[in-house]
């Protein structure tokens, strides 16, 4: 089947909350999923990502805006007419039906003939590596297995669109990683245009072609994982994607793209993306933990601090170091070759000037 694109145009949704009154859950969101692409909506809970997906599925009616699947305007169609496969956060397997009956459900609805159903159910179960589970019931299976049944049930109908709503959030950490790999492999093999919702940035980075970061019902930034990580547009995106340090500084001078920031008496030339930064202003300079290095103190050391926390993580060691006016997180990789530092040890903090930036809040 040919992959189609999905387009949301200016979707808006408000709710009436009993205590808080009118809440705007989604404010004019527009986006496009390319044919065969896996696009992820990422954001903290309450950011509007699930509501956006539910409007695409047809479970929620938008207050305004349009939904297109392929070239067809489906805004006024019911969910059962949209030809979607939906994987729910809690799987929503039918508890009274066996695995085979669960997977066959959508095919029966479509009036597929019985032999064909049997063949396609087996094929789908094979795809999710659940051969031989046909007669089991959902409650007899582990969370990971249930998750795969939900996936098989969604893809067996060969939908135009696959929607996954936090599908991994009920699995343990290891299973999450292996299952997201499987989802990605399947999605690519079937080349289904897919919208994926999660609040887990690592999951989003691992699985997506592109990611949309949302907050308070708005789209903040769209891009690949690399673009979001290396070139976040706002402090919110920088802090949400990966870990980042916000180091307090005083602005000494500023131009359109550059600023000189004073951190503990040291001057740094940093890239500046914030408008209206004037000399004398306070601003947080952002720097990833892997762009900081530590050294043993020596008489030339400029910025000094004390190690207050140390966590050995195998591939790297994470430190928290307290300097005079700020606390900073530092990740040091290649733990075989590195000098390691102890708690309470005094160290020199070396900040990578090239990777420092000031962003819009």
């Amino acid at each position, binding site marked *: 089947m040919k992959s189609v694109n999905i387009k949301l145009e200016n979707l808006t949704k408000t709710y009436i909350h009993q205590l808080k009154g009118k809440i705007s859950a989604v404010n004019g969101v527009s986006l496009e999923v390319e044919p065969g692409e896996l696009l992820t909506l990422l954001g903290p*809970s309450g950011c509007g990502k699930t509501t956006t997906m539910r409007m695409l599925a*047809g479970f929620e009616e938008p207050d305004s805006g349009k939904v297109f699947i392929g070239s067809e305007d489906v805004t006024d169609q019911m*969910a*059962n007419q949209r030809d979607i496969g939906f994987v729910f*956060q809690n799987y*929503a397997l*039918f508890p*009274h039906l066996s695995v085979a009956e669960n997977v066959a459900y959508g095919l029966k609805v*479509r009036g597929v003939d019985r032999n064909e159903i049997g063949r396609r159910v087996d094929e789908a179960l094979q795809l999710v590596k659940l051969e031989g589970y046909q007669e089991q019931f*959902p409650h007899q299976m582990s969370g990971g297995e249930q998750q795969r049944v939900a996936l098989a049930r969604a893809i067996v109908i060969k939908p135009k669109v696959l929607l996954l709503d936090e599908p991994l959030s009920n699995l343990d950490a290891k299973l999450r990683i292996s299952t997201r790999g499987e989802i990605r492999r399947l999605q690519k093999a079937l080349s289904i245009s897919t919208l994926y919702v999660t609040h887990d940035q690592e999951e989003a980075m691992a699985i997506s072609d592109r990611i949309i970061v949302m907050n308070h019902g708005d789209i903040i930034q769209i891009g690949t994982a690399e673009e979001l990580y290396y070139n976040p547009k706002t402090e919110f995106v920088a802090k949400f994607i990966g870990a980042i340090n916000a180091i307090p500084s005083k602005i000494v001078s500023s131009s359109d793209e550059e600023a000189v920031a004073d951190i503990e008496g040291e001057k740094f030339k940093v890239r500046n993306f914030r408008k209206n930064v004037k000399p004398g202003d306070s601003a947080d300079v952002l720097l990833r933990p892997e762009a900081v290095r530590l050294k043993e103190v020596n008489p030339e050391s400029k910025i000094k601090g004390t190690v207050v926390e140390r966590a050995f993580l195998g591939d790297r060691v994470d430190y928290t170091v307290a300097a005079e006016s700020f606390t900073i997180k530092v990740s040091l990789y290649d733990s075989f070759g590195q000098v390691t530092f102890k708690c309470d040890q005094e160290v020199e903090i070396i900040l990578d000037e090239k990777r420092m930036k000031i962003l819009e809040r």
Partner: protein
Amino acid sequence: MSVLTFKRKNTDTLGNLVKDPALLTSVIVIWMFLALFVLFPIFKILSIAFTEGGHFELSGLLKILGKKYTHIAAWNSILLGTLVGICGTALGFFFAFTAVRANLSKSWSRLLDWAIILPLISPPFTMAITVIFSFGPRGLITYNLLGLEHFEVYGMWSTLFAETITYFPISYITLKGILGGIDPTVEDMAFSLGSSRWDVFRKVTFPLSTSGLANSFLLLFAASLADFATPLILAGNGFPLLPTEAFLQITGLFDMKGGAILSFILLIPSLAVFFLQRYWVGRRNLVTITGKSGSQTKFKSVGNKTRYLFLFICLLTVLFILYFYILLLYASMIEAFGANNTFTLTHYKAIFTRGREVIKDTLIISISGMLLGGLYGVVVGYITAKKKFFSRKFMEIVAMINYALPGTIVGIAYLIAFNKRPIILTGTALIIIFCNVSKYGANGIRSTVAILQQIHPGIEEASVSLGASSIYTFRRITVPLILPGLFSGLGIVFIRSMTAISAAIFLVSLNWNLITVSILENMTELHLGVSAAFSVFVVITVFIVITGISFVLKSLRQPGALRITSLFGA
């Protein structure tokens, strides 16, 4: 997101009805039923109370309101309701606490459950009859055992006693749910912080169950307010109550207006309690049932000595209840209670010969009511809980009105509404069946809603996302999952149709009579043996049906399907 998605229900629009023809049809049919069998009778009873010759006129109402007798009856009703609420809740809490906290073995707690269910499945005045057998002028305890002559059993205390024993099981079921829902680790936590058992009870367990206690009090208050049969037999002339006065006004004095006005007075506290229970207590439940069964900790809140003491008291009460039922059986098998104690089966012969028609009528009415009422409960429960449509909230309330109103009011309202054109139903079986469906079908609505709340909305959305229509989803997904609700609804309508009297007594006729009414007639004609035999018949029939339904419920429990814990689940 859960908070937001939960609010989806707020969009009840006309548009949803137009889009979904199946929903539109069901909504129209249900509204026609509700308009005809709930709103119309209530309207008629109000118009009779407030008009005179077609004009708005308050003189009749004011006249009756001004009577001292009315004041006494109203005051007595409220006093009795309050006392029954307090005593029944106390007894119910005691039983529930023992059942949930005393680490009973399975067989013991099953015995407790079954003994307590007896009063719930008996004709409402079974307890009243046996109280007279025990404490009446010729009573087994007062006359035979204690040798008291002319013991005055009639009055408030005996009525209170009989109603407390009859209704405390409601409290037991309510509170058992609440106490059972408290996570034992919460109590463990309090112990670990150094509290004594008494402290844990006083500061943790009891405060967590206060909303349940309030709920139980209101339920019992309403039950007592509505009870008509017990006071009719036990209250006597010295302790008039509103429902009995309304009944006597109509059947004794043929004063329809007076009866309507008295039942209108009764309507006010009944509705007040209903809304209080629904909108205040119902929302203040502190116990959340998470469905997590992770904590396998044992309850430690009851010490060994206390445990045996509690068990002893519960057993004593259970034995007392069983004693009443054995007495009933005994009375049905002797010539004349208190006078001639020779064994005989003539009473049973009588009910199966002279009483055969009544039994047949009762079974026909109960079974048809059960089928209709079960369906009604599931459909109304489903669409009010799951669908969004214009008038949904209003439907939810209207469907509960007859359930909330005392049977006396509903009976009188039906009597007034359906004995004249345009709709004449007086003298038919239909009037009784519709009355039972509209009143007791509401139980099915409640159990369906309770089950639906346990089904995650995602399950139905999953079906829709796979391309299924709403009818297909209902048939293949929802119905199998709410079958337990259907059967429990069926069961309740059957039981109530077999046992209730307060509404039906106004609706029986020469053509269609009911066992409960016959029991009362035989009581007043002092054919106590026949009354007892009829009562035993009802208890056994209902018992068989309940066991059958429990069996069906058990076998219906497909893998993963939801359970309904009690047929009477509050």
